[in-house]
């Protein structure tokens, strides 16, 4: 399993109660900060739905 994450912190920095998936299930980490993530173009989506009826 490959997890794309916005930040990688040292062990111990995440509170145990905030862990949603234990590291046991993660094979690789990929750093992808928010600025590298292209967000959906809402105007394009609006045009898409208008065009497709």
């Amino acid at each position, binding site marked *: *399993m490959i997890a794309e*994450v916005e930040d990688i912190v040292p062990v111990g920095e*995440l509170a145990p109660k905030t862990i949603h998936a234990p*590291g046991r*299930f993660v094979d690789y980490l990929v750093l992808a900060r928010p600025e590298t993530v*292209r967000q959906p173009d809402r105007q394009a*989506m609006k045009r898409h739905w208008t065009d497709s009826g």
Partner: protein
Amino acid sequence: MRRVPQISIAEAARLFRSGGKLIVGGFGMSRHPVPLLHALAETQIRDLTYVGINVGEPGLGGGVLLRSGRLERAIGSCFTGNAEALRAAQSGDIEVELLPQGSLGEAIRAGGAGIGGFFTPASAGTPLADGMETRLVDGHQMVLVRPIRGDGSLIRAWKADTAGNLHCRMPESNFNQAAARASA
């Protein structure tokens, strides 16, 4: 302590093989692993089975894989957000399996937990249940949903520590926990 390797997006994309089953986390386009999916579309991979709520949006996320002809099959619950997916399904370019959203999440969870399937009333008596095994349980018609396991999962989380523990936020936590386990 185990240290999970950190690799580049391009290196991650090269780990997948053609013909595999890919489970994608997130909740629709919310917290969708867009960079990884776009990098995957730049490889020569093909004949993928894509498991996720939807196949991204046109030309975005899973939609890039669809548009570039990398998908052979899609398993999900809501493809209406991507009209190209509807057209591909109607024209037979990809095979589509629709599951109610709860059944989809539970099927992925069951895959990760090693459960052989589960009976649910969702979709019983509807065209979605055609061809599926049914059983009467306490007077209610139930449909057998088989578990879903993947050859690989891609999820987007907010933070990780170097041991790979993931902290998800917002809709990330809806499907990511199940998706993480279903290909371990």
